[in-house]
């Protein structure tokens, strides 16, 4: 079935299976492997992307429902080959160890901060609860997001 969508500001057109998930399309059809998977049941959040600005788990997102929509993956959050502010804060704070959860985590953090840049620790933990990290124990991830939130709030 024909699928048209915009990913990270680039327009794509592909023939995909009618029941394909957005994750499969991104990774297998478009070769955008920055988005990871860890479960295919919506439980780990590694596959999180934004669809029209809202966070979804792409493993459970029927690709056809995104027809004509705008998808942002972790690759779309940096600019011109530079790290985005959340990515940079993750590096500074040691918020990524193996890095496997990181793409989904960063996209979820982006959604959270767009919703409320002034989010406190409790709100951040709640907003990231759908993204499992087995390596870090979350402290440093929360610190990184708090830091970006403060910087963004100060900038506006």
């Amino acid at each position, binding site marked *: 079935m024909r699928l048209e969508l915009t990913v990270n500001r680039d327009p794509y057109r592909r023939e995909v299976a009618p029941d394909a998930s957005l994750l499969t399309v991104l990774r297998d059809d478009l070769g955008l492997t920055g988005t990871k998977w860890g479960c295919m049941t919506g439980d780990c959040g590694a596959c999180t992307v934004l669809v029209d600005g809202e966070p979804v788990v792409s493993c459970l997102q029927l690709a056809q429902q995104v027809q004509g929509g705008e998808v942002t993956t972790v690759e779309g959050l940096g600019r011109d080959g530079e790290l985005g502010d959340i990515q940079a804060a993750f590096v500074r704070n040691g918020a990524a160890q193996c890095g*496997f959860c990181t793409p989904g985590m960063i996209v979820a953090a982006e959604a959270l901060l767009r919703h409320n840049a002034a989010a406190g620790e409790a709100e951040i933990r709640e907003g990231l*609860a759908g993204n499992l990290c087995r390596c870090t124990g979350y*402290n440093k991830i929360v610190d990184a997001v708090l830091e970006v939130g403060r910087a963004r709030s100060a900038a506006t």
Partner: protein
Amino acid sequence: MSGLLVGAILRSPHPHARIRSIDISAAEQLPGVHAVVHAGNVEQRPFGYNHDNLPLKGDKVRFIGDELAAVAAIDEETARQALELIRVDYELLPAVFDPFEALDESSPPIHDELPDLEGNVAMRWDFDHGDVAAAEAEAAVIVEGTYSSPQAAPAAIETHVVIAAFDPDGHLTVWSPVHMVFMYRKELADCLGLDWQQITIIQPPVGGSFGGKIDIDPHDFITVMLARKARRPVRLVLSREDEFIGTRTRQPIHFKLRTGADAEGKLLFRDAEIVSDNGAYNGWGSHAMLVAMNTITSMYRVPASRVRCAVTYTNKNYGGSVRGFGNPQATFAVEQQMEELADALGMDPMDVRLRNANQPADVTPQGMEITSCGLTECLQIVREQSGWDERRGKLRERHRGLGAAAYIHVGGGARIYGSDGCGAMVKVDDSGQITLISGSSELGQGSETALAMIVAEEMHVPLEAVHVINSNTDVKPWDVGVHASRTTFVAGNAARMAAADARDQLLETAAELLEAPVDRLRIVDGTVGVVDDPERRMDYARLVRRRLLREQGSVVMATAFYDPPTEMQKEYRGNISAAYGFGAHVAEVEVDPDTGMVRLLNLWTAHDVGRAINPMLCEGQIEGGAAMGIGLALSEELVIFDGRIAAPNLHDYGLPTALDVPRIVVNLVETIDPRGPFGAKGIGEGGIIPPAAAIANAIADATGIRPREYPMRPWKVKGWIDTQERSIVVRNDA
């Protein structure tokens, strides 16, 4: 990679069955299928610590998930259809799920092919030290109890992925996330009858392991078998379900423990009977018992101990070497009894711990030679930060409580193989770039950065100047592998030695070119200069070029091999590690006594890391470890009904989320170990060890009950409250 096929495995649906026949003919006929393998059409030899396992089972299956056959096909859909076409005829056998039943001579034999097993006991390990009977007679207080743990999973977020490809000339390359690459290569060769000189193992970046990817698994062999048969490269990706069902888990261990102390709280003896439920086969995971034994005999000063261990076979997924390796389980028993003893004596548990704390220069009953030891300081820090003296025992009205636990763990390698060594090479090229080629592997724990920092420090250059290569067996020198929190210590020492040698080579050239003796040279930021003469200096790049671009020139390149000064244990005695790590945690919980739900409010931790080479990485290891410990304590379990994992998914397994883990307070205690690189000790496992025990003690403080097993899921806590499960004090003359 062109022509890459998809591999898929057929697993046993039965916990214990004889295989009458396997028919693969229909699967082989399916268009798009390029290979079907099963025990009847491949060459394979038993592997594993007890040589009790075959990649593809031919006679019997011994747990739900056991590998029977596999296919390589053009895509997942075809592979799945092919698996459905394989016909297996089983004769069902009675199964053993309970390790205590497995001890029984009359339990149905799981490994009838292995001679001389009594019941389903794979191994027994006994240890005696001092006079337990005399100590028991003397004790003022004795507590006794049972402490159990479940089957748990390492559950890295990335599942296992293996790719195998043969060159036209027969050379095999395997891309695998395994930690023990050199052993892996040998086991592949031995089991499959391949020439191990013709095998290259490459480690791509790994999405976490925690011991789940430490050893070779049947699916590793199977991927190679498929590639060999299909004559095409094959990729095998485990689904999350397969990951839970078919890869190694943390084995349940059951302790019956007695501890005695005198009226002043000085420990007199420990007496433990330990049964490990290690599942259908014995990998290295069976040795988790050794670590458990260390903790029984050596956590705190214990003058007399008696330990009886049995490793049993059961018809369940088998145990591996998961982070902490037997120690969270043992600490759950030992550290609960420390508080039980203290309470019976009317003493503060922290005082009892401090009275018995291990100290530098101690040699434990098993011959572990403690060099640096910050246990006392760690205990004092968490005591102070948690407000222990003012608050413990006083929060019960608010259903809150505090509990503590400490640990001892190897921190300078662990000699359980002939060598515990690691090789390293350092080269400096004509651009001045420094490359460390290390035998060790990066699994996401940040060891690459720590090693680069060690080299940078030794060579007086900024961190960015050092590149690390460690992912290819063709290139890197031998290493036993990543385990036992050894990488910073062992690979770090090797890297440091090689870096020092490379630096000395540069100094030698500089002495010649700058016409000054070496002891008048100083290195600042990769430039060698003569003391008090700022004009006479030369950076590494120039030094290398001047050394190289001349007749009889030479490169700057150094190699080193570090094998820690340790010994293999004999009869469970010997200094297995060059250093030991210590730490202490205090947990604060709130319990809802009516539903048994427990909320962890705070976790204060202090860890003796020797030296924090990179504090952020140390904290990351501790925080991540502690979060896993919190998972063990409160939520993680593979619930098994009749040998079947009830819900092999991330939802029911119970990995802690950002809301389950509170802000963890980390204190790094530096004791500067005499043998560690710059004084550092291993820290990869420490964080996971104390939380379950500390949380159990906190629940006890909040409610008065005594937890008997983890995870302390709500219905268990509620059950203990309803039945008034208490500490068992078998003697109290104090």
